[in-house]
């Protein structure tokens, strides 16, 4: 329910103002707050505002139409409708207050305890909460209401009990989220008691969600209360809105206004609370939302003014092959992202290329724009991002000139992608087999059996020992190394001529890293693919790259042959990167070897060593597969 009701870029600039001020700056917040203040004032000053005693009967005004003396007319027993509505405000607010109070008193402490202590406390609390939620509260309310002399407060306390699970869940999940925060740990280490930690450090983040929840709960309590009165419970002689609605309902064909007034009062009160809660949630939540179209247009306009042509940074990088001979060639690629503060350029015009059968490394620190570069190559930038380029050549064709559908068709056919984090890149809801065969059938038009055979063959090729079993597995049943092999199999199953790997070994265990890298190298040679590998690790570069692109904050620092770059880096930054990489390097031996021999010449010439390697990893992977 964090829906923004208004789009308001301006308010984001004034973060320093208090939450309350920011709430009132939004029209929805200001209006709903004003309505609620009005309702509270009416309730407090009811005796002064109401023109008549709510229970005073004047038979002359029975079902009377609105008149100057009785602005809303009289009800079926001759009482002033306006006065009864005004006094009804008191009951409505008091009932909501009792219900919300009860809910908070029950739900918040128990939620705190469940979230903070976990274990058995948590299980018991959650079970009770679920149990309460699985009983239709209205039945219990009827039981309580019918024979306790229509005790209004008791009824609203019961309503509060049934709404307590909402607070319990909310508090519990918020506490679970902060329980392991460093500042809570610090307090624990400092020897503070549990009660003190909870009241001092844990309750703070819970407060805002509770206030929001209370707005919604109060609205629902008002609805429950009116509903009960509508059924003739908990009303007595008090002039409640629900009772008035029941009265109006019985005569709605002749006097529809008698139904209209209390319904309006109830509807507006509840809607105001709901809108207030939602706007408050919106104001408090600091997460950046995606921009609306209107905001996008506005931003585009401001940016056109703010960025004169001269301010654009010059393109960096160079090409080594003719456009027609290259597997991939980027010319003056720029990547921009829309943020609430405006459009930010993260890649400032880079030019590079890779030949068929060549291994190109793109190296840089995080934030250097290396991943953004390859996502542009793939045309898979996140929604907020877009690129411009003079040209992007893939397989001798400028794909920026292709229509969108034709550009999308390159994926899976000519260009494949191996992601960084294996565990989050497999769809958790589908089997490995489905994820491998679906593109083969849907994109490459294979029959079910042919696709299955191909998928099995690919799994076997990437070194998975029991392909049939892995095909039936779900992603969560695989180890990281296995999952990465599955992803590699998926990327090359369509026989692409270019394989793009975004930090393919970073998320893996050190022992598995070398094997996966070796596998990529083998496959690259076997299928004569161009391989673009993004990494921050010079060990990886030394291991398999023919040429290297060094990137720094969105620009290319240096491009060169791997051996030359290691032996004699042109730029100081490259030298520093290499030095930093070697300081903590786990594979100095490999680096040295790579420096001695020209990269890529002898490595794969030793198939025996390679096979041995994969066998060992299979053994490891097999042990990791859960039944």
């Amino acid at each position, binding site marked *: *329910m964090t*829906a*923004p*009701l208004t789009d308001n870029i301006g308010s984001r600039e004034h973060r320093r103002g208090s939450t309350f001020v920011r709430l009132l700056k939004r029209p929805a917040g200001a209006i709903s707050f004003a309505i609620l203040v009005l309702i509270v004032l009416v309730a407090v000053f009811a005796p002064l505002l109401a023109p008549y005693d709510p229970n005073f009967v004047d038979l002359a005004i029975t079902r009377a139409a609105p008149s100057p003396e009785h602005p809303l007319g009289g009800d079926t027993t001759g009482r002033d409708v306006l006065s009864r509505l005004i006094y009804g405000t008191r009951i409505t607010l008091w009932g909501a207050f009792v219900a919300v109070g009860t809910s908070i008193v029950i739900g918040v402490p128990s939620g705190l305890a469940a979230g903070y202590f976990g274990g058995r406390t948590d299980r018991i609390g959650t079970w009770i909460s*679920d*149990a309460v939620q*699985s*009983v*239709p509260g*209205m*039945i219990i309310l*009827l*039981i*309580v209401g*019918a*024979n306790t002399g229509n005790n209004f407060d008791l009824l609203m306390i019961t309503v509060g009990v049934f709404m307590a699970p909402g607070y319990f869940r909310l508090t519990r999940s918020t506490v679970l989220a902060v329980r392991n925060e460093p500042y809570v740990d610090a307090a624990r280490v400092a020897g503070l008691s549990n009660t003190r930690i909870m009241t001092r450090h844990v309750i703070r983040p819970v407060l805002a969600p509770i206030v929001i929840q209370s707005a*919604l709960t109060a609205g*629902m309590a008002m*609805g429950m209360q*009116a*509903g009960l009165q509508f*059924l003739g419970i908990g009303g007595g002689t008090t002039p409640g809105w629900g009772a008035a*609605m029941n009265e109006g*309902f019985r005569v709605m*064909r002749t006097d*529809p206004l008698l*139904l209209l007034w209390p*319904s309006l009062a109830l*509807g507006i009160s*509840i*809607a105001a609370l*709901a*809108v207030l809660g939602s706007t408050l949630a919106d104001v408090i939540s600091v997460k950046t939302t*995606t*921009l*609306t179209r209107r905001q996008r247009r506005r931003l585009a306009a401001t940016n056109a003014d703010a960025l004169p042509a001269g301010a654009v940074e010059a393109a960096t990088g160079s090409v080594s092959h003719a456009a027609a001979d290259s597997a991939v060639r980027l010319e003056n690629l720029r990547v921009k992202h829309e943020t609430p503060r405006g459009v930010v350029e993260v890649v400032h015009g880079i030019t590079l290329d890779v030949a068929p059968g060549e291994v190109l490394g793109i190296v840089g620190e995080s934030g250097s724009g290396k991943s953004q570069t390859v996502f542009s190559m*793939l045309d*898979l930038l996140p929604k907020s991002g877009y690129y411009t380029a003079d040209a992007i050549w893939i397989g001798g064709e400028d794909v920026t000139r292709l229509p969108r559908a034709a550009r999308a068709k*390159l*994926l*899976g056919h000519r260009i*494949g*992608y191996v*992601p960084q984090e294996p565990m*989050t*890149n497999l*769809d*958790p*809801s*589908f089997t490995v087999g489905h*994820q491998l065969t*679906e*593109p083969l059938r*849907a*994109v490459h038009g294979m029959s079910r059996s042919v696709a299955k055979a191909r998928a099995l063959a690919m799994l076997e090729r990437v070194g998975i020992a029991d392909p049939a079993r892995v095909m039936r597995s*779900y992603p*969560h049943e695989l180890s990281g190394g296995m999952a990465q092999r599955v992803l590699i199999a*998926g*990327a090359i199953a*369509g026989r692409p001529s270019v394989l793009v790997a975004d930090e393919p070994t970073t998320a893996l265990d050190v022992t598995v890293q070398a094997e996966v890298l070796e596998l990529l190298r083998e496959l690259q040679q076997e299928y004569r693919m161009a391989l673009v590998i993004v990494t921050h690790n010079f060990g990886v570069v030394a291991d398999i790259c023919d040429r290297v692109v060094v990137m720094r904050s969105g620009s290319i620092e240096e491009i060169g042959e791997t051996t030359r770059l290691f032996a004699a880096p042109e730029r100081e930054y490259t030298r520093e990167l290499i030095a930093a990489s070697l300081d903590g390097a786990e594979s100095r031996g490999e680096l040295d070897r790579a420096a001695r021999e020209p990269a890529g010449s002898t490595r794969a010439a030793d198939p025996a060593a390679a096979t041995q390697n994969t066998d060992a990893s299979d053994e490891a992977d097999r042990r990791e597969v859960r039944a």
Partner: protein
Amino acid sequence: MFIFTLKRLVSGVILLFVMSTATFFLAHAAIPDPTLGLLGSAATPDAQAALAEKIGTDRPVLVQYLDWLGGLVQGDLGTSWKNFQPVGAQIALKLPVTLSVVTFAIVLSAVLGGLLGVLAGLRPDTWIDRVVKAAAVILFALPGFWVALVLVMAFAVQLQWFPAVGYVPPGQSIPDWLRSITLPAISLALGAVVMIAEQLRNAIIQADGQDYMRTLRSRGLSRPRLVTHLLRNSAPPSLTILALMFVGLLSGAIIVEQIFALPGVGPLTQSSSQNGDIPMLLGITVITVVFVVIINLLLDVLLGWINPKVRVK
């Protein structure tokens, strides 16, 4: 999967036991002398004593409880204290009406809410998305009976498209049956529709930002196939909400049935609570909790089918 289902079933039986016990003692505490309400104006000390002996309220509460529980275990819900007819049979007579309305409301919520949620989720920040968001804020908070009154005023009294009151059994005429439960079902479902739409929208947007969606795109899958992956991954939270809504709808049905004069469990509950007919009230509670347990069980099985990880836990 079998063990998983069995565990949930046992948990459901425990819930049923705990809730019916709690309701039993709550009802006896709330209604200390049921004979007063049962006899009404005919209550004299002699008549009260005679009735108390007949319905067994002259015994200690614990004895009454064990007696009632013994019946429950054998599937016997006892006899009504008002008309001395079997409770089960009387509820069974009213249940189809309530189930018609609630089921219709659930179907409406799932279909309409699902549709709106998917449309909004696949195209965030378009007009449909903003309408869903704004509607979710307000409509969810408004009680079903309030919506029912508005609908009755507009469509039954003013436009006369639907009957304002009354129920037509499906055996008599299917179209008339549908017409008689349409407004009640809409009143109940409106809040659930926007809630489910909002939930599904958020889940779809969240799933669309996941790494695996990018990887699936990189394989060249078409938009409809990508949407299939999205839906399967974003369905679980909405289904959970739908199951939770079922309880809320049963509660709401009690008032809504009153408004549309539907002869369902709602009016029966109300009259029983006014009379102090405890066996009837307990019977209604037990039957509703049984339905809730069944719905939750179905949900769990469905979730397990959709999301393989659930099965492992």
